[in-house]
């Protein structure tokens, strides 16, 4: 459960980093306007290490377009997976093979 939520959050935060094409050196203006450049840099620190792995994989697969977008796709997939596991863990509690009846008032 905690792991699932963790996965969801970790992958969600990965999405903006992937959308920046895995590169936080030149943050877009929005970051400056909102004064959240440190957030951008922090993302770079957390996820930056995997950038090369993603790039080599995608290049070996001859992926077209920006590579970051594929990583984004992976991130949103993982976020959804985490969410799904968490939801199912909560939801399956009221699954029933055995059902007792509510007492009448």
């Amino acid at each position: 459960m905690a792991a699932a939520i963790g996965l969801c959050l970790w992958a969600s935060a990965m999405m903006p980093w992937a959308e920046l094409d895995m590169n936080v050196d030149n943050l877009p203006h929005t970051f400056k306007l909102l004064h959240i450049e440190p957030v951008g840099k922090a993302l770079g620190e957390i996820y930056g290490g995997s950038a090369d792995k993603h790039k080599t994989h995608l290049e070996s697969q001859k992926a077209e377009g920006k590579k970051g977008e594929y990583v984004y796709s992976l991130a949103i997939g993982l976020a959804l997976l985490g969410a799904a596991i968490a939801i199912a863990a909560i939801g399956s509690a009221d699954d029933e093979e055995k059902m007792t009846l509510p007492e009448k008032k």
Partner: protein
Amino acid sequence: MTDQKTVITLLCERAADVDGICDKAGNCTTVDGLKVVKLPCSGMVQPLMIEGAFKAGASGVIVTGCQIGDCYYREGNRMIRERLLGERTPGLKKTVERRRVLALWLSRLQRGKFEAEAKEFVAYIKGLEPLAAAPAAAPKPAPAAKPAAPAVAPSEDKKEDAKAAIESKPTAETTPADADKAAEAKVDAATTSGDKPAEEKKAEESKAEEKKD
């Protein structure tokens, strides 16, 4: 008769496979006092059948259908499930003791679980005080003889029933284990207060019958 504890199972023939543990007549050979009536689908179970079982002297009823989501006839088990919970008309009469009814949703392969749950339930029922209000001789309403009733009165009555059930849902969490303790307490109460509850029940029942006719 009242000391004899029979539990009737109304079973979908596609749900948990009990062929190995039942004789042809419907007596379960491994769980004492468990009888099985097979139906093509648990959706065929009428609340009237459950009431009839109690009137005929049964002390508990188990409704068994397939896993929710897997009804061969698409929706049968959902229908009876909602009827039992009072979310769909027709539902059970107020007079039926809810703790004496158990529903199991088990796939064909889950005979073991069926047996275990049934055993537990039979034991639980054996611990309850006998159903005083239901002498075996009580005349079962003969369906064929009953004239058709006006639709409005009973259905309205039932809607209220359903509403009440929905409102009472939050209290539904009691498991047989919890209920067991409650039951013990009740036995004490019953021995001191005589069979007043039974009389009340009868009065209510006859009122309901009147309304119908």
